C-alpha cells in the first residue's frame, strides 16, 4: 500500500509530462478537409510555380520529396508514373523539396535539377526555400503526399500520407492509396482511406 502511495505522484508526473510532449508531437499542419494555402516556389528551371498557375487542374498531388532520402528515391518512378497517369486527368504532381540544403547539400537546387534530368521528371520539382511551405502542410518526412481537390472555396486537402503500401517492391503493392484517392475524387466520390502512415526520412531543418 505504501508503495502504491509512493507511485501516485510519479504517475501524475508521468501523465503531466506525456501531456506536454503529446502537444509537441502533434503537428500543426493541414488536416483532412482543410484548405491548403497557395504558394509560390522556385522550380528547377528557375521559374516560380503556384497552384493557381494550373487553371485547368481539378486538383493536385502535392508530394514532398527529395534526392537524398532512400525512401523517396524508391518512390521516384512511382511519383513519375502518378504524374503521367493523372496530370492528363487534371491531377498533376507538384513535387516540393523541403530540406534545408545546408544540412543536405545533395538536395540543393542544382542537384535537384540533375536528378530530375536523370530521371526524366515530367512534373515541377520545387524547392521550399526558407522552409516556409512544408510546415503549413505539416509534412514531417519525405516522401509525404497531400492530395488536394480544387473547389470554389480553394484547394481542399482530401488525402494525406503514403503513395502505396509497399515501399521496397512496387510489384508487391496491394493498395495504391494515392491512386484510390484521386480515382474517387475524379468520379465525385468520397476518398475512403483519407490518411495513411509510412516510414520516411525526417525533413531536415
Amino acid at each position, binding site marked *: 500500500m505504501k508503495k502504491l502511495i509512493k507511485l501516485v505522484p510519479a504517475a501524475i508526473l508521468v501523465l503531466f509530462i506525456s501531456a506536454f510532449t503529446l502537444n509537441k*508531437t*502533434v503537428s500543426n499542419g493541414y488536416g483532412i478537409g482543410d484548405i491548403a494555402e497557395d504558394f509560390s516556389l522556385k522550380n528547377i528551371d528557375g521559374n516560380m510555380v503556384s497552384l493557381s498557375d494550373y487553371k485547368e487542374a481539378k486538383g493536385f498531388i502535392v508530394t514532398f520529396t527529395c534526392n537524398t532520402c532512400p525512401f523517396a528515391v524508391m518512390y521516384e518512378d512511382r511519383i513519375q508514373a502518378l504524374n503521367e497517369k493523372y496530370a492528363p486527368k487534371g491531377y498533376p504532381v507538384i513535387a516540393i523539396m523541403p530540406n534545408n540544403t545546408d544540412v543536405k547539400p545533395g538536395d540543393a537546387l542544382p542537384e535537384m535539377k540533375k536528378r530530375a534530368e536523370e530521371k526524366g521528371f515530367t512534373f515541377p520539382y520545387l524547392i521550399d526555400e526558407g522552409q516556409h511551405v512544408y510546415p503549413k502542410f505539416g509534412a*514531417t518526412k519525405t516522401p509525404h503526399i497531400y492530395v488536394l481537390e480544387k473547389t470554389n472555396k480553394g484547394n481542399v486537402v482530401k488525402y494525406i500520407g503514403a503513395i502505396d503500401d509497399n515501399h*521496397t517492391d512496387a510489384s508487391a503493392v*496491394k493498395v495504391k492509396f494515392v491512386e484510390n484517392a484521386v480515382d474517387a475524387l475524379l468520379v465525385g466520390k468520397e476518398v475512403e482511406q483519407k490518411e495513411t502512415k509510412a*516510414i520516411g526520412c*525526417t525533413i531536415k531543418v
Partner: protein
Amino acid sequence: MKIVLHKTLNRFLHKSLLNYKKCKEVLFNFIVMKLKALFVAILLMASCKENSKITEVVKETTKEVAVNTSETNDVKLEIYDFAGFEQFLNKKDDKTYVVNFWATWCAPCVKELPYFEKLNSEYQSKNVEVILVSLDFPHMYDKKLKPFIKENALKSKVIVLEDPDMNSWIPKVDKGWSGSIPATVIYKNDTSRFYEQSFNYEELQQEVNQFLK
C-alpha cells in the same frame, strides 16, 4: 521465447560442433602417434560418432526455429514482421526498455546511436535495456546493415523489423507517429512514452530517469 530458444540452441550447437572438432583432432593425433592405443581410439571414435549424430539433429532444429535469421559477415540478424516484433513493446518485467527505430540510411538516426549505446551500457545496472530496431531495406541487410553493426561494434540488442505494410503497424506503435525516423519508445510495464525526435545523451538520460523514479 523464440530468441531464448534460438540462443540456447545456438550455444548448444556451437558447443557440440567444437566438441566434434576437438574430438577429431585428438583422434588424429592418437592414431598417428600412438598405434598402441588403437583400441582406445576405436572406443573414442564411437563416442564421437554419437556426438556428431546429436549435432545433426540440433542443426535441423535450429533451421526450423530460426527461419527468419539470415547469417553472413558473422552478424546474425533477428528479423521480425510486426506481429513477431510486438513482444518487444509489451514486456512487463519491471525493466525500462528504450526501443529506438532507426536505419543505416537515416543520418540523424546514425548520429544519435552512440547515445543509445552509452545509455545501454551506463544504465544496465539500473535495469534499463536498449533495443535498436532497424528499418533498413531487405536488399541492404548484407551490404549495409551487417557491416554497420560489425564496424560500430553495437552492444545493444539489434533487431530488424521487416513489414512493408507500414500503414497497418505504425499507428500500433503510437497513434501520433507520422512515420519519420528516428523515433523512440520508452516504456516500463504499462507506462510508455513515444518520441518522434532526435536525442542527445542528456535528453535521453532525462527521459529515462523519469521511468526510474
